[in-house]
């Protein structure tokens, strides 16, 4: 007997998976949400707490799910002192409050650092990814083997659908961005390599040291030490020197990557990265005198993430495409976030991101505590994006994001009848501005140099 969740997830490789209207899918989705809730309510401590507070015992509508969604900040709610003081057992215990599976038998002896702690967890099938924020706490997202297996499948399907590129293992892949060395990214990278890269050509990995959770955490720890006034001047000098060296390596990586692309310009390419990195490499390629005319018109591009507050010229998109000779037909963009396990690819005809059947989209008010009025039969709704990703197994699938989006339940210009998201996604944090002033405040205002 197949469950509602299984039925929805079985759409993963169906060519028409985005062609099911929300009205058609919703009864099955509600059933699936309840299946997942009943299965997890006693296993995820934070969910139990939420359900008790809200008095929810059963999911009979999307509305019931709203108080049970976890904000994107839930995964960074661990006390920072656990990190600072390397209290791995405490941090493990915190992780247990958001994990559906017990975290047991993890070897806690002589853990060297946070990367070591993460590898000990991985040895027991608990995979930790972190958000890529450079200041403030990193979110720690726990996932399991099933999630990795799903990502492997989903990432290739999403790219093939969104770019029209068949996985034929016939390209030279060029990474134009440092990638955080977390299990999810590694899994995705491997899956794409298998699907798209020609084995004898290999893949160009962006030449910078891997970004580990530990390296991200160093920044957080330093900031905290500065705030607490315990960072000594020499320590700050050393930290800044290391940062400067690292910056040099990052700057060099751009040129090295541009040279590598130019040397391989006769091959069929798949370039990947985030806009900021892709733009920097494209600019270096142009500066060396190469552009579209030198590249294969069947090249493709994989763009991950948004602008991440990068300051780029207005025409960054065209500039990158025209450098690597990316046909507009091959323009690929994907909407997702670390907190989810699946992607939402953009169609080329309607220029909208498509939500798959196993993701239940919810548009909330700005505060994230109630649904905006909606009509499943059609109409665009704007507000805070929230999703329930039924493909997530190793943590709760209900997430409230920091994004402001416009979701439409009407059919898209591309012909698909499923819900889709307009290409005007913004972050609330960027929209709020900084018109804040008051005499009450924190030591954060006194810390400089780790932003």
């Amino acid at each position, binding site marked *: 007997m197949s469950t509602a969740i299984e039925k929805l997830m079985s759409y993963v490789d169906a060519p028409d998976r985005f062609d099911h209207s929300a009205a058609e899918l919703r009864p099955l989705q509600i059933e699936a949400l309840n299946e997942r809730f009943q299965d997890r309510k006693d296993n995820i*401590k*934070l969910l139990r*707490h939420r359900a008790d507070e809200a008095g929810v015992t059963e999911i009979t509508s999307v509305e019931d799910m709203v108080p049970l969604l976890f*904000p994107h*900040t*839930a995964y960074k*709610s*661990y*006390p*920072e*002192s656990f990190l600072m003081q390397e209290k791995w057992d*405490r941090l493990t*215990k*915190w992780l247990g*409050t958001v994990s559906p599976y017990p975290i047991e038998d993890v070897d806690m002896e002589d853990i060297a650092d946070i990367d070591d702690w993460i590898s000990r967890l991985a040895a027991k099938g608990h995979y930790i990814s972190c958000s890529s924020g450079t200041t403030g*706490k990193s979110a720690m997202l726990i996932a399991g083997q099933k999630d990795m297996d799903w990502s492997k499948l989903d990432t290739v399907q999403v790219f093939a659908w969104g770019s029209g590129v068949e996985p034929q293992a016939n390209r030279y892949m060029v990474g134009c961005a440092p990638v955080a060395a977390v299990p999810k990214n590694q899994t995705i990278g491997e899956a794409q390599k298998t699907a798209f890269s020609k084995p004898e050509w290999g893949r160009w990995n962006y030449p910078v040291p891997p970004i580990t959770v530990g390296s991200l955490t160093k920044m957080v720890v330093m900031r905290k030490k500065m*705030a*607490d*006034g315990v960072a000594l001047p020499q320590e700050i000098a050393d930290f800044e020197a290391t940062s400067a060296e690292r910056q040099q390596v990052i700057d060099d990586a751009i040129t090295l990557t541009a040279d590598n692309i130019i040397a391989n310009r006769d091959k069929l390419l798949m370039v990947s990265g985030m806009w900021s990195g892709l733009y920097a490499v494209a600019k270096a390629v142009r500066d060396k005198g190469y552009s579209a005319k030198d590249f294969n018109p069947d090249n493709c591009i994989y763009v991950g993430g948004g602008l991440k507050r990068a300051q780029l010229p207005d025409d960054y998109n065209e500039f990158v495409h025209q450098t690597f000779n990316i046909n507009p037909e091959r323009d690929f963009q994907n909407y997702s976030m670390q907190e989810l396990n699946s992607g939402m690819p953009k169609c080329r005809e309607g220029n909208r991101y498509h939500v798959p059947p196993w993701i239940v989209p919810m548009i909330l008010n*700005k*505060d*994230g*505590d109630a649904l905006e009025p909606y009509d499943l039969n059609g109409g665009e709704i704007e507000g805070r994006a929230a999703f329930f990703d039924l493909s997530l197994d190793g943590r709760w699938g209900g997430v*409230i994001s920091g994004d402001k989006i416009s979701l439409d339940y009407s059919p898209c210009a591309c012909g698909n009848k499923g819900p889709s998201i307009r290409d005007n996604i913004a972050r609330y944090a960027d929209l709020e*501005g*900084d*018109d*804040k*002033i*008051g*005499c*009450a*405040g*924190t*030591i*954060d*205002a*006194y810390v400089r140099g780790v932003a």
Partner: protein
Amino acid sequence: MNAHSETAVGEPIVSAPFFLRGELIEGTDVIQKSRDLGVTFATPNIPFDKAVPPRSEVPPLLNVPTAEIIDFLVETGQRLVAPDNEYVHECFDRMASTHILPRSVFENVGKHAVAYLDKRILQAELEQNFPDPKALDGWIPKQDFNGRKSFVRAYAPRLIHVLPGNSPGVAVKSIAQGALVKAFNLFKMSSADPFYTVAILRTMAEIDPEHPIVKSMSAVYWRGGDAAVESVLYRPQYFDKIVAWGGGDAINNVVKYIGPGFQLVSFDPKTSISMLGREALESEESMDIAANAAASDLMMLNQEACAASRFQFVEGPQDKVDRFCEKFQRCIADRAEASGDVRPLSSDLKEEVEALMMMDDEYGTWGRADGKGLVIRSEEPVDFHPINKIGNVVRVDSLDDAVKWVNVATQTIGFYPSARMADYRDRLGAGGAQRVCPLGEAGASTVGNPWDGMYPLHRFVHWMVNENGIDGG
């Protein structure tokens, strides 16, 4: 700054007029949004040339005696609390839609702040801030050991005041201080309260529209950080000093414009704390007294004030500290209920608090994450900034262990019992603290005392010298 969108036709929108040297300017040229509640309000465009008097003009208050200024301020105070002051009524009506605090709270604060407009207080401010307050009224003769003579004047400055959004009381104080130093003042109001400053200035104009005080004051609003305004106004050719409250982006924006001739006088963002010795836990009675006093400090402006306590370091064993926490939470909750303040916690804060509740063998919690009063007991200060009626009781074996948590952002430290202040104040000063006081008295301060590590009026003025040679004078 004209790029803001218009709201739908017919939607009622609160208007925030500007005041320019006696002239009220109303308009709906720009639709603004309040910072905390996202409420829209309308303002006119800033008439720049009216907001900045030319340097060729001698400040109108320069030769008005401080005694007369004080009298005028006192009269203003009386009019502000008069029951028939329409400007103030109307202003509180409007503020109710933009301010984060309940009406009763800010109305009280606004009225309470008017007490500052008292003859003895204002005189004491001058006497404490200046070795010789007569330097404000005239040129003070000086002579050094060489026989060289000169005159010194605390010359009227040109000030931009960037007012904070959290306390309406600051408007009263800033206007009074700007008048006492005879400055030409431009007040940049906050989006939480783009009304009260104008209401005070209108009250002044009603007393005497031609008075030099009125001719020395302007109040406008723009969205903090708006380069189209700040790049125009923040220039030494127009102003000598910018008096700004706050930190983070608010100050970073201002700092960009600081340079020769354009100085920053900053009232920094502050965190206040409490230190409770083991004496507080000696008996049920002492616990009650201490819990009540600690709650009083915590609930200043419902914990929106800089002097409001956020962390309470309590010396003693966990069982007794927990007993204190229980009482403390009740005192906070009672005050919260009485104030009618029912703001929920922000979702980020709620998330952090709930994570601690999950870790119940490490943290103790009393109350819920609902904005109605909560106490968290921990062995170290929590990561987040306790706000919206949250106390973080940090248990320590000795108050000596609490000293390391004092830093350059620490403003007020309330002590119980007060006899222990003397043992700690030197070390607290080294850490960066600004004031210590008996627990429960964080709000009160001796008239004319320094603030934020300085005598502000002394910093405001532009000290000018008239040398007169060996034989002159």
